[in-house]
């Protein structure tokens, strides 16, 4: 195979950007592919002009601008606005850009594809008032747009408080914060935060603001239902501790998400080894601290290798850059070790905090307590919990069999939304571990692909018709 470069990096978040910058410094020819209009990924996403004018600059904005500057001056080729829809061994990467297709090949491939939001259904979750928590974060931070006038912020993990803070900064109202974690869990998290002074400072500032405004926080609780009443919705909040009465409040938006999980599209498509992380509640691509996977030449970096947050993603990117240079024979083992030592020690420190954060983000078996028989679990295909349970009772004991019998996960999102919920339902009902019931098979295209892009312009005579089937 003729290669286009030494290394293709998918994802121009902080992890992909750092991998690219470091690998280039070691003399490697890299190409970065990313589906956003500009580099930066999630945390360092380029704000819209409107957001720049209306949202005060924070550390993330400054970091992001700095990262984009560095990439620009490095001269690294970045294919922004290109979505990767397939990869095959060797490695060949298929891209789609608007209505045009392209492919790239290289002996080394890095998946720095970041995180996907984890969601679990409840009554009324398909109401337009409900958005994802991470989605709301993007809307706020990069768009400068409020999800509503009065928003219930619900789900799990630190993003709850980050989003609440962003809403207040833009002049919106936070009706309540609903958190699946207990105060005791947060106290444990707080204890580790001394290892990450920056994050601690930020968290404390957010909490002061939330207290000052007397925003109610419901710990060990979740949104039980959303019921539309004209232009507002009634949001019912239920305690997960098993005591306490339901509380219903009015709002016009609900931002809800149960933490993040790694985007494993590329690694699954390549059949790299994956492990189920029970504490985190998700599958991740097995990799060493440098991102080396079970497949030679395929690396995973940043949150795509397990959710650890932006600071760790940066460090992982640096380590992957060095490792690729080392593995391709550009630097010797001693140089490699010397370069990595300080990064690794910083990584280990931050990792303690991040692991704690990942536990906080895991809401556990919430879908069981939080749905009715007729609650849709798969939005694309409108599959209810009862339909899924019927399939299980009829003998489906593996997640792809449930998908096959119910169409749950067959729609345009390809199961990104429902997989975690189906896994919980299946594991519970069949008394199997969540790791045993498996994960949806990933196939191309990773994102829906316009027929016009696939076909291009052509005539009938251009189609290489195989010879006729036998009579």
């Amino acid at each position: 195979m003729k290669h286009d470069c030494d290394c293709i990096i998918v994802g121009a978040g902080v992890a992909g950007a750092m991998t690219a910058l470091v690998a280039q410094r070691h003399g490697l020819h890299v190409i970065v592919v990313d589906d956003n209009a500009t580099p930066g990924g999630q945390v360092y996403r380029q704000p819209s002009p409107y957001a720049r004018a209306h949202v005060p600059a924070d550390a993330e904005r400054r970091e992001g601008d700095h990262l984009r500057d560095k990439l620009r001056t490095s001269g690294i080729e970045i294919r922004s606005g290109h979505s990767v829809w397939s990869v095959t061994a060797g490695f060949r990467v298929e891209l789609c850009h608007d209505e045009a297709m392209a492919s790239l090949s290289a002996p080394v491939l890095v998946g720095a594809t970041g995180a996907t939001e984890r969601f679990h259904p409840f009554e009324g979750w398909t109401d337009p008032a409900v958005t994802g928590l991470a989605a709301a974060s993007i809307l706020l931070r990069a768009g400068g747009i409020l999800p509503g006038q009065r928003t219930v912020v619900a789900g799990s993990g630190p993003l709850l408080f980050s989003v609440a803070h962003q809403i207040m900064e833009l002049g919106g109202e936070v009706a309540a914060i609903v958190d699946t974690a207990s105060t005791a869990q947060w106290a444990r998290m707080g204890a580790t935060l001394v290892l990450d002074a920056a994050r601690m400072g930020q968290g404390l500032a957010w909490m002061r603001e939330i207290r000052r405004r007397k925003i109610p926080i419901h710990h060990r609780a979740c949104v039980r239902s959303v019921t539309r009443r004209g232009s507002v919705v009634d949001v019912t909040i239920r305690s997960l501790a098993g005591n306490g009465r339901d509380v219903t409040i009015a709002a016009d938006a609900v931002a809800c998400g149960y933490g993040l999980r790694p985007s494993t599209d590329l690694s699954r498509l390549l059949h790299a080894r994956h492990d189920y992380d029970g504490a985190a509640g998700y599958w991740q691509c097995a990799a060493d601290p440098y991102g080396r996977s079970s497949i030679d030449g395929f690396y995973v970096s940043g949150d795509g290798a397990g959710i650890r947050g932006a600071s760790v993603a940066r460090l992982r990117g640096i380590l992957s850059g060095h490792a690729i240079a080392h593995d391709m024979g550009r630097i010797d083992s001693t140089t490699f070790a010397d370069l990595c030592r300080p990064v690794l020690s910083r990584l280990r420190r931050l990792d303690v905090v991040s692991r704690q954060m990942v536990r906080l983000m895991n809401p556990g078996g919430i879908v069981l307590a939080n749905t009715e028989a007729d609650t849709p679990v798969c939005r694309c295909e409108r599959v209810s919990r009862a339909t899924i349970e019927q399939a299980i009772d009829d003998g489906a004991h593996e997640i792809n069999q449930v998908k096959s019998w119910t169409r749950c996960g067959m729609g345009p999102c390809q199961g990104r939304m429902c997989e975690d919920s189906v896994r919980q339902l299946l594991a519970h009902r069949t008394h199997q571990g969540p790791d045993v019931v498996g994960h949806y098979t990933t196939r191309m295209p990773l994102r829906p692909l316009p027929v016009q892009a696939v076909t291009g312009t052509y005539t009938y005579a251009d189609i290489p018709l195989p010879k006729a089937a036998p009579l």
Partner: protein
Amino acid sequence: MSVRTSSTHRYDAVIIGSGVMGATTALMLGRAGLKTALVDRRSIFREASGVNAGTLTLHMIRAGLIPHAMRGREMWLNAREWLGRDVGATATPGLSLAFTPAECELVEQRATVRREMGAPIEVISGARAREIEPGANPDVLAAAYCPLDGFIPTYVVGQAYARALAQAGVDVLEDCPVSDVTPCDGGGYDIVTGGRAGMVHGTRVVFAGGVWLQRMLAWLGLNVRIRCLINQLVVTERMPPVMNNVISIANGLLSLKQFQNGTVLIGGGWQGEGNIDEGGTRVIPENLQGNVRLARHTIPRLDQSRIVRVWLGLESETDDAMPIIGSIPTYDNAFVIGCVHSGFTSGPYMGALLARHILGEDVDLAAFDIGRFTAMASPVSQEEK
């Protein structure tokens, strides 16, 4: 001979492979009162029988199998009666289109052969074809028209079988890969599985392993070459109605249908890559493009759509592309079923046919005798012995 422990489960019949062929055979034997086990290395209906295009067409099937396909198609449409549950089988007409003069000739030729085998196919003009299928490309010159066509959303069929098998008392042993089958001195066969079933014993054994049949037959020392086709399928997102019929083209390399939910399935036997021993398949991007170009040429409005998923399924084929169904020569009570072209359509009928043969009925399986491939082919059939 293998050593059998007292814990070995004993069955009147053990069927290895739970696609449509094995599962139907098992269902019918179970209903006939035989203590039956259906063994699969994975879950039921997850290989060819769970991922195929579900076309119930007479345009593409091998002409020699048309009588069987017509009966199988009827069975799918009446699934409630014999399977206990409707499986969403939809009857529509089918059109096979020609866009060039050479293809017109091909359509004529293929229609003639199929008509002789009993398929009610007539050749119509391009204009008439466009009346029947207004979504078709105006460039169509002629078409073969068959009132008997249709489709099934394949993926739901396994659930209907799972229920029926349970009701028939068939033990479904999933996640039990069979690694060997040995004849026992006292009759019957020991079947070694790698799963929780361990070893099972069957008075009768049926090999129904799809593309893995060659491996299975080798357990008995038989050497039958079985080719593996790696067929590509492409599905679009839901879209407004763009077609009403099952559409194919003259040379058979396209199949198109729009399901009730609005998704359009594009098939036709374009090939991918894969390895049946190691598993894992790979789409060839050029073949994806070719297949979709052909589809868009045929139904131009597909250009408004997006592709949601592409997958590959494994289809088996013998050297003469005709099935192997029936008794295995020189072995008592050992049977085979597979390599049926467009086998999903005829599957229920073929499985039921084999079950009747196993139960001692006189059914005509001469055309499918595996003896035509086995070195030790014996002209003496099991019944005559």
